[in-house]
């Protein structure tokens, strides 16, 4: 399901043909027989009173504001009714409907535009304005914790028998739809169907 794929969290990979999955395969040194476990996810329908207003406009925020949880809020330009002024303003439509990708800034992850995790890490603003798949280094299993050597591939529905040598540096990919950062304050002023996903 398209929306579900887009809403997978960072640990999730989609079907084997997705860019993130391909990237992970490339970084493996050897294959270990195993099986994938689907990661549980949830998407909540958010809505308020829908009014036949003439327009619901929100402007791209200057800089890279964060919400109370330290997320940059990236408004998906393909999820809104109209884009104005070269992406400086968005019409959220009537009734209001939009998708926002929360890009954490405080969880220690660094995002790159390649699966080799080389180059300069990207900030939330650049990721949002460029759109695409971005990669970060996933934490390996703690030796004192679950003791697992193999890394589970996380896909949405089907189970693919593959695994990763956990000693390998593993890049996990996440998709960020192209758009513009908006302020949490501005977004909160709209009562409508805004779907949030956190990478």
């Amino acid at each position, binding site marked *: *399901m398209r*929306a*579900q794929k887009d809403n997978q*969290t960072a*640990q999730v990979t989609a079907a084997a043909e997705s860019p993130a999955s391909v990237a992970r395969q490339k970084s493996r040194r050897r294959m270990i*027989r*195993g*099986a*994938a*476990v*689907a*990661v*549980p*996810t*949830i*998407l*909540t*329908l958010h809505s308020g009173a829908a009014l036949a207003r003439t327009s619901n406009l929100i402007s791209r925020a200057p800089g890279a504001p964060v919400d109370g949880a330290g997320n940059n809020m990236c408004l998906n330009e393909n999820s809104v009714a109209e884009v104005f002024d070269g992406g400086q303003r968005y019409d959220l439509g009537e009734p209001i409907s939009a998708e926002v990708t929360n890009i954490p800034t405080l969880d220690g992850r660094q995002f790159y535009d390649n699966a080799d995790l080389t180059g300069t890490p990207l900030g939330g603003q650049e990721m949002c304005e460029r759109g695409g798949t971005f990669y970060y280094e*996933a*934490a*390996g*299993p*703690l030796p004192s*914790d*679950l*003791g*697992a*050597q*193999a*890394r*589970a591939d*996380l896909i*949405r*529905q089907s*189970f693919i*028998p593959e*695994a990763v040598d*956990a000693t390998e540096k593993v890049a996990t990919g996440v998709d960020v739809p192209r758009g513009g950062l908006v302020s949490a304050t501005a977004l909160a002023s709209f009562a409508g169907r805004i779907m949030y996903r956190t990478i």
Partner: protein
Amino acid sequence: MRWRSATSDEFLWAEWDREFVVFHRPSGQTHFVNAASAALLRDILVDPMDALDASRALAGQTPDAPEPDADFARHVFGLLVRFEELGLVVRVSP
């Protein structure tokens, strides 16, 4: 920290091709969940469980699945906290 699902009569389920939409009566909210979340809510968390055991139970539903790693368990923990915020699960004293 352990959780169990809200009682089954609080949920209305719709399923298509292993994707689920669930209506939560007390809150009036509607959620899209994947098969793994549906398994948590409908089967795994019928009895109270912590995030680690819930992760293992999820993995156990997959043939030949390895032990879930720390990332997976952390994700399940975060999700259970979110489920609790939504009223889909309740915390149970140890």
